[in-house]
């Protein structure tokens, strides 16, 4: 691991799911502090590509490196100190409190016989406060709403404190106010802690506002990467979603309206 190695690097990646190609010979480099939005139609393979980047799934060809090393070389524990992953859906088989759920993020930082210390609990409480769940500590996760559970997932990730965030639909199920709050929280983590992140998003306007670059996945193996202003245009997005979209601008903020 050298300090010059990029946070995330994918080389000559070929991924397909259920016989459909997601990407071919795909190269991607993500530096610390950078935010990448991943957009595409349903089933285009956004989540599949993200799980390959997270080391959860093997690509058909090519390799993924984080901070210069492959997941295999690092092993799961060292990998978990570098990259965190937010799943799109989660199911809780057993009852557990909100604080306990956030605290599992400390696992990679603890030695085998360590118990979570007060310091770990403080880190988890800060994360819960950051996502607006400070008063929920002792609630059972089964009693949370979809949006609250989603914010708890983000709190667990903040407790894990990785340098690379791979987020599968981080603002799904969230109210508009929480969507903006979450994206600002993540933007803050990128700016202040130098975290790099890749986010699967469905809202191109928010992607353009909160990300530096965008990756468009067309679902037939074609991918495009570039700065958000070049990628997230009415023309490109209309082709991506195969539906005419119109760009509307107000006070410097951009939104795309389906025709």
């Amino acid at each position, binding site marked *: 691991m050298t300090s010059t190695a990029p946070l995330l690097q994918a080389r000559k990646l070929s991924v397909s799911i259920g016989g459909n190609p997601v990407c071919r010979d795909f190269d991607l480099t993500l530096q610390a502090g950078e935010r990448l939005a991943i957009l595409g139609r349903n089933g285009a393979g956004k989540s599949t590509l993200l799980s390959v980047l997270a080391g*959860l799934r093997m690509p058909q060809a090519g390799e993924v490196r984080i901070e210069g090393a492959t997941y295999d070389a690092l092993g799961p524990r060292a990998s978990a100190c570098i990259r965190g992953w937010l799943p799109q859906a989660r199911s809780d*088989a057993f009852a557990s409190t909100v604080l306990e759920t956030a605290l599992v993020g400390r*696992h990679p930082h603890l030695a085998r016989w360590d*118990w979570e210390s007060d310091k770990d609990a403080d880190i988890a409480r800060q994360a819960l406060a950051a996502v607006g769940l400070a008063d929920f500590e002792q609630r059972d996760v089964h009693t949370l709403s979809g949006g609250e559970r989603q914010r708890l997932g983000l709190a667990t990730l903040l407790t894990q404190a990785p340098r690379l965030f791979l987020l599968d639909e981080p603002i799904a199920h969230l109210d508009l106010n929480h969507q903006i709050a979450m994206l600002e929280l993540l933007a803050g983590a990128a700016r202040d802690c130098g975290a790099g992140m890749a986010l699967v998003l469905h809202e191109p306007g928010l992607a353009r506002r909160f990300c530096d670059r965008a990756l468009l996945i067309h679902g037939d193996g074609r991918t495009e990467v570039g700065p958000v202003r070049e990628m997230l245009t009415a023309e490109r997005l209309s082709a991506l979603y195969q539906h005419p979209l119109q760009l509307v601008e107000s006070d410097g903020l951009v939104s795309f309206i389906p025709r």
Partner: protein
Amino acid sequence: MPTRRRALLIIAALAGLALLSLALALMVGSIPVGPAEVFLTLFNDGGGMAGDVVRSLRLPRALAGFACGGLLALAGALLQVLLRNPLADPYVLGISGGAGVGAMLAILFGLGAAGINGFAFAGALAAMLVVFGLAHGDGSWTQTRLLLTGVIVAAGCGAAVALLLSIAPEHKLRGMLFWLMGDLSQADDPKLALGVLAAVLLISLPYARELNLLARGADTAQTLGVAVGRLRRGVYIVASIATAAAVTHAGSIGFIGLIVPHLVRLATGNDQRLLLPASVLAGGSLLVIADTLARSVVAPQQLPVGVLTALIGVPVFLFLLTRDPQVRR
């Protein structure tokens, strides 16, 4: 999540309960022995008739019961995490079914206790290997595939047991049925079961926090630093060996492997660092108490201990479930 201090206190309390249950098992029976006498006979060879009864009959049976109860509860707790299914118990993956077929065959062939144990253990291992091999076939090894394979193998074994029961001669039926319902009267040497119990607990405990993560989902566990594939295989093998050892010694005693982990979970939460040792102590105690009642309530008749574990466990479980405002607020 309990603090380490609270966890140790709970374990100490349960260890006290375990000792009480063992003491009860040594005192109660056709020849009642007082607490002081029990204490003396354990550390001296004398004590006459009562001493012999305590040392050579009640003590081995109580220790074997404790070991089997602990093994079943531990296996149940591990499999509930592995399958992420609160309904999983040590028998869900067909291990007891395989042991049952082996034991029925041994009884049919007229083998003695050692033969029955050997056949039962071989049957359990065979079922474990079949389920493992089939579920592992395409490398995906999902919980659903493992669960389905296990349930199907268990169903097949159940049919084989029914077949053997239906062709068995009348005078062997009672022994076969008692074995199937769970029976500690043949368990005369607890050393092996206690050894297996200590070994599987010591192997599992270092991985307890990783098991907490596995209970939250394989992908989540993997991204938080758990080597999921290796951990799952290990849990499967450890739980299988624990089940096989218990079933071999005591037959298919139902209920403990399903209910005890839930009892402990309801009372203390789902942290495997506490849940695994607490389940061992609670499961062992429950089986010792149930077996003491099974051999004394309608003495000289002996009841199948599996009936007693259920009769004790069901009301306790229902009480905890309804009482529980704290966990599901």
